[in-house]
């Protein structure tokens, strides 16, 4: 008993320590900075704790948050990020669900197909996004082919549009949708579909009433795995996205590195995190329910 207790403490303790050291403490640091004001110094913000007449005093500034909420630039960036993430999540779901379904029913080909889904990870993410620039730019491959086929006379402007941004994000995040969906769909009992068919359900009705509801946990997991990182995505919008409307990850980086306004950048980060708490809690609830059902 004692041995298993100690083992359990280790199993739970190590990840907890990891999370505290590498997530909670850095977050608290960011949170602390967000309540400060920018200043030309090293570090470039005012300390929160100051000594006045020998007494420590807490000096909390809410100015960064006030600035965020009153300046429409930030609000627009937040909304744009949520919109891009939401659209990309839906696109990933629409493309990923049939793929995951096909892989789960592919029999002997299953492992080969799964391998193909994971294969792109062997190349650098940055390289793959750059490759899309080569494909999508005005004198890129796609325009070349379309013009030489005589389908268009002038190159289509695809790069630095919402289109190229969606392509980049959907392309990069598709595996994160497919893998959890696959692992869900693969567990479905084929006898259930036979039972549905036996009870008079046509294939599509059986899909809607049996397969789809049972794959909801997979849909939720996949959607959140795409949505959450997509909201804060920095590299893809920088390389492929619009220049007139930037996503919140870019805003954050600008505040940190270009404006050197650490408190404002920290406030941006804290608000992003708060926005994502809702979907994360949702994910946990779905996972818990799935555990209970088993």
């Amino acid at each position, binding site marked *: 008993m004692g041995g298993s207790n100690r083992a359990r403490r280790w199993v739970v303790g190590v990840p907890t320590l990891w999370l505290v050291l590498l997530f909670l403490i850095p977050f608290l640091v960011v949170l602390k900075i967000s309540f400060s004001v920018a200043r030309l110094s090293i570090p470039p913000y005012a300390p929160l704790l100051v000594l006045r007449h020998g007494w420590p005093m807490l000096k909390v500034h809410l100015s960064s948050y006030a600035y965020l909420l009153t300046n429409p630039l930030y609000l627009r960036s937040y909304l744009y990020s949520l919109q891009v993430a939401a659209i990309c999540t839906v696109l990933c779901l629409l493309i990923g669900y049939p793929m995951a379904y096909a892989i789960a029913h592919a029999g002997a080909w299953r492992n080969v197909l799964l391998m193909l889904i994971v294969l792109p990870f062997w190349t650098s993410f940055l390289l793959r996004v750059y490759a899309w620039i080569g494909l999508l730019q005005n004198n890129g491959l796609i325009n070349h082919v379309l013009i030489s086929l005589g389908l268009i006379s002038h190159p289509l402007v695809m790069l630095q549009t919402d289109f190229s941004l969606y392509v980049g994000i959907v392309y990069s995040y598709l595996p994160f949708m497919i893998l959890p969906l696959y692992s869900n769909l693969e567990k479905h009992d084929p006898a259930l579909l*036979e*039972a*549905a*068919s*036996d*009870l*008079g*359900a046509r294939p599509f009705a059986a899909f809607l*009433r049996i397969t789809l509801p049972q794959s909801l946990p997979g849909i939720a997991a996949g959607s959140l795995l795409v949505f959450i990182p997509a909201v804060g995505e920095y590299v893809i919008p920088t390389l492929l996205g619009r220049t007139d409307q930037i996503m919140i990850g870019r805003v954050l980086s600008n505040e940190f590195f270009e404006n050197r306004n650490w408190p404002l950048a920290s406030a941006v980060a804290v608000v992003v995190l708060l926005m994502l708490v809702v979907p994360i809690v949702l994910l946990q609830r779905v996972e818990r329910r799935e555990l209970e059902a088993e």
Partner: protein
Amino acid sequence: MDGVQDRDLTVPMVESRSQEAIPEPAYLRLEGLSKRFGEFVAVDAVSLEIARGEIFCLLGGSGSGKTTLLRMLAGFERPSAGRIWLDGQDLSAVAPHDRPVNMMFQSYALFPHMSVEKNVAFGLEQERLPRQEIRARVAEMLEIVQMSRYTGRRPHQLSGGQRQRVALARALVKRPKLLLLDEPLAALDRKLRERTQFELLNIQQRLGVTFIVVTHDQDEAMTLATRMGVMDHGRIVQVGAPAQIYESPANRFVADFIGSVNLIEGRVTEAGSGTVLIRSEAPACAIRAVCTLPCTIDDTVWVALRPERIQLQQAQHEGAAVENGLSGRVRDIAYMGDVSICLVEAGATLMRVTVPNSSGVLAHIARHDEVRLGWNASAPVVLLK
């Protein structure tokens, strides 16, 4: 329910029913039904006729083709050859969701994300019946299987026996012309199984639905079936009432598969009117047996002798004279409660004898005792193959 259906009588003639006039077409008729998976023949030209309201059990070991046959009836497998006629309708090319046939799956295949009520209503919802009617029929069926108190439960909140009832209700609520049951009791423990068998019979009689039950368990088949078909290697080797199959098996496989049996190989030395004399090497003895089969002298035959048809006596005992006798020595006695099973060595052959414990015969017989086995000429069955 739907008796006013045109019966298609332009049935293509098949050898098996060539000239015989069948007064009424059978309710379910299989004609030369086969299923091949590549080289493997799972079901081999099965022809069978089943009457309305029967409980027909398909009994066979694993790989005998019984499940494949059932799946062809449900429509999950396409026959490689042959036809299925149900109530005058050719089902061979009808998709599973359009067949008036329902199945109770071995695993029950209840929908885990739906309540008991929703599970049972599923089939009726597919028929797009009015909500009121669905609710009434579901309630009625849950009442019949005594699950009315659990309408809101999910399958994982039910016991094995309760799941089995829900699965039965879900299949029966559609009022199928034919209910297929795949190992209906296999997942239940012994006590529950016995009770459920009788409940199943009860429900079947009440609703009058024709049942086809697939099972590997002969006890299950014996108690449920009005008739049964024993399957081996994709073929039905014998069809008959349980007693008929037990008492007069058609061949060695059936004799051995149903119940336990002593099989003795021998050669016919005398073939008279109604009885034959058979000389056997192991055990070395002559056996007189009633035989109506056409056999001639020097034919190799098998004698199937049920263990309970053999009388066991002490070696020196002067009992009633029987037509056949054999000496041996008791190797083992297994006490089973109602009976005891004795294994008796007769030369190199091991004979199995069951003795009712109430008979008191075993009071004077112990292991290693010399004993005498005896049986009447009418006890064994002579088999040609």
